[in-house]
């Protein structure tokens, strides 16, 4: 580090030396000019510093204020309107409908609620499958790459991580190609005698397929309690039929692309485990499974929680892949709240409805983020610069 070492004798630096109070700063303890202190010279320096501070953060304040805070407030207003995107929604001419948009989504029987419930169901299955799968896979990859005697581990790490840095649109294009009806995946499956489904055109839920295969449910004509009861406009059968085959393809894509990022987070944590801990365990005579179970995994617990919650937050936002690969089709089984919000606004010109969906989604995600931060605050925050 280029330490410009201390020879402050030069240039008769009297004023600036005086302007440097060697006190440890406690921000907020004494705001500039809050409590008048007898010393005047430092305060001048401080006031200048305050001006510079605001100058330095002004681009951030302007951009984040104009394009983040203001839009949220505007959208909150629009979510209370019935606005088709034509006129200016802020001149008071647009029809004000209060909470009607939210009501149509949550409590009122109708197409809006059915669609929203469908989107929630789809995304819920997406979360339930993607989060555990990507976490387990990422952990496995990290454990592999962390094997000290494994040859080519840096090449492997690169290969595992690479999909994470590519554009979601480009990767979705590849998956569309791979999972066509007579595409690469089905060709490979036919080698082992399996006839693959027509992935992106298959709206059947995998759970109902499974139960139907076992003869437990007649999938063509679901009967009894499952068909008679409904919640938010969807029958129990529809809630419980599982992600569609098409959705499973998107889940595979998500697991494949995100596992690399989470692998790195696990890897950093693995390399932080003190070697003495493992060696001590080895001296005790533990075998590999015991070492993993009683030493490695417990040490990874905070990171595991972090990865799970990061995954939970990210998976509720799935949009790009749906846009490119299916646009909600087949049979609305890949519709997600994020995509529904977009298509209600920009497709059906119902911006009020779209904004309302966006706010429900926002509330959901913020709640999870708050939970995560709360739980992580309990633990001592450690900041690491990787390796």
């Amino acid at each position, binding site marked *: 580090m280029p330490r410009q070492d201390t020879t402050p004798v030069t240039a008769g630096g009297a004023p600036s030396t005086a302007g440097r109070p060697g006190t440890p700063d406690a921000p907020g303890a004494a705001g500039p000019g809050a409590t008048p202190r007898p010393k005047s010279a430092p305060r001048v320096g401080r006031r200048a510093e*305050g001006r510079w501070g605001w100058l330095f953060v002004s681009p951030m304040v302007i951009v984040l204020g104009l394009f983040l805070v203001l839009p949220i407030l505007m959208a909150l207003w629009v979510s209370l309107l019935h606005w088709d995107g034509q006129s200016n929604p802020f001149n008071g001419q647009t029809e004000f409908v209060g909470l009607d948009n939210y009501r149509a989504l949550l409590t009122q029987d109708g197409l809006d609620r059915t669609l929203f419930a469908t989107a929630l169901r789809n995304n819920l299955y997406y979360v339930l499958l993607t989060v555990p799968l990507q976490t387990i896979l990422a952990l496995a990859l990290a454990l592999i790459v962390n094997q*000290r005697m494994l040859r080519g581990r840096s090449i492997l790490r690169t*290969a595992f991580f690479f999909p994470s840095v590519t554009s979601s649109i480009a990767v979705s294009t590849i998956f569309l190609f791979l999972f066509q009806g007579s595409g690469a995946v089905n060709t490979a499956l036919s080698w082992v005698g399996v006839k693959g489904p027509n992935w992106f055109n298959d709206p059947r839920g995998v759970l109902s397929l499974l139960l139907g295969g076992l003869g437990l449910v007649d999938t063509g004509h679901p009967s009894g309690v499952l068909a008679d009861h409904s919640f938010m406009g969807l029958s129990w059968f529809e809630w419980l039929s599982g992600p569609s085959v098409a959705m499973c393809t998107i889940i595979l894509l998500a697991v494949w692309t995100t596992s690399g990022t989470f692998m790195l987070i696990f890897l950093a944590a693995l390399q932080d485990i003190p070697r003495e801990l493992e060696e001590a365990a*080895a001296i005790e005579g533990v075998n590999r499974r015991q070492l993993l179970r009683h030493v490695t995994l417990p040490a990874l617990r905070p990171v595991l929680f972090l990865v799970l919650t990061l995954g939970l937050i990210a998976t509720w936002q799935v949009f790009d892949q749906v846009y490119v690969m299916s646009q909600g089709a087949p049979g609305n089984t890949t519709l997600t709240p994020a995509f529904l919000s*977009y298509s209600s606004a920009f497709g059906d010109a119902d911006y009020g409805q779209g904004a309302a969906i966006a706010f429900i989604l926002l509330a959901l995600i913020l709640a999870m983020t708050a939970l995560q931060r709360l739980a992580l605050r309990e633990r001592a925050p450690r900041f690491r610069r*990787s390796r």
Partner: protein
Amino acid sequence: MSTQNSAVRSPGRPVLGRFAPPLRILGYAAVIALGLLYVVPFVLQLVTGFKTDPDAAAHPLGLIPTTPTTAAYQRLFGLSQAGEGVPFLRWLGNSAFVAVVVTAGRVLFDSMAGYALARLRFRGRGVLFAFVLSVMAVPGVALLIPKFLVLNTFGLFDTYTGMILPLLVDAAGIFIMKQFFESIPREVEEAARVDGAGVFRIFWSVVLPMARPALLTLTVLSFQGSWNEFTHFLVATQSSRYETLTTGLARLVSGGLGGGTQYPLKLAAALLATLPVAALFFCFQRYFVQGANAGAVKE
């Protein structure tokens, strides 16, 4: 692979010795299979780009094109008149322009804000930092309609300004820079101050040069982020002259640009769209890794 040599590499010896040879071979086979799962899709993408449409449909797994052709690439670069042209060069130009401006803006503004939040004492600093932290929690997809509203109101919809301006600052980058500036020893700045340097001088010629690793991380992440950006451009623009690689490719793939599956064309376009970030990744993988982990430490 890997049958002999056990004593050569002693420094990184595993705690529990090595697996027995048969297990080891099995393990390597499994690991190689896993690695192939991550590599083969890209290989197929590369190969299919040089196939004809019927060949791609008939032999999706073929690793060698039966009749190799560069037709897809010729169409992308406007060298052939076959079929309607895909305005690929315009997409490329837009993506490059936006990504460069956004990256420059982020590197400058994020480090300024990060430095102010880490070091300068001013009223409201704590509140501002709390603001940055909460901004990081706001999910991008919930902002699609809000962003459109604000751009539409300001007359920025369907302009380069509207594409670039909202991306010029990002909270995560500010956070990374703040973390870094806090790790620089204070004495360095104090020494400069004693020498009579002002706040800006200290920032520009003392602190920033020391922040090279963090700045590189930020540059790499900003470029990757703005190059791969999709949703913002989707709601900020409408006309095809503002299409980037992501929005253009998305329209091509989801069927907006006319008939047929045209997989060689689509995959070639996707490959070219990936190349710049891929090149950056293979040169600066270290910084991508740091970025991934920086995402993990946000309090």
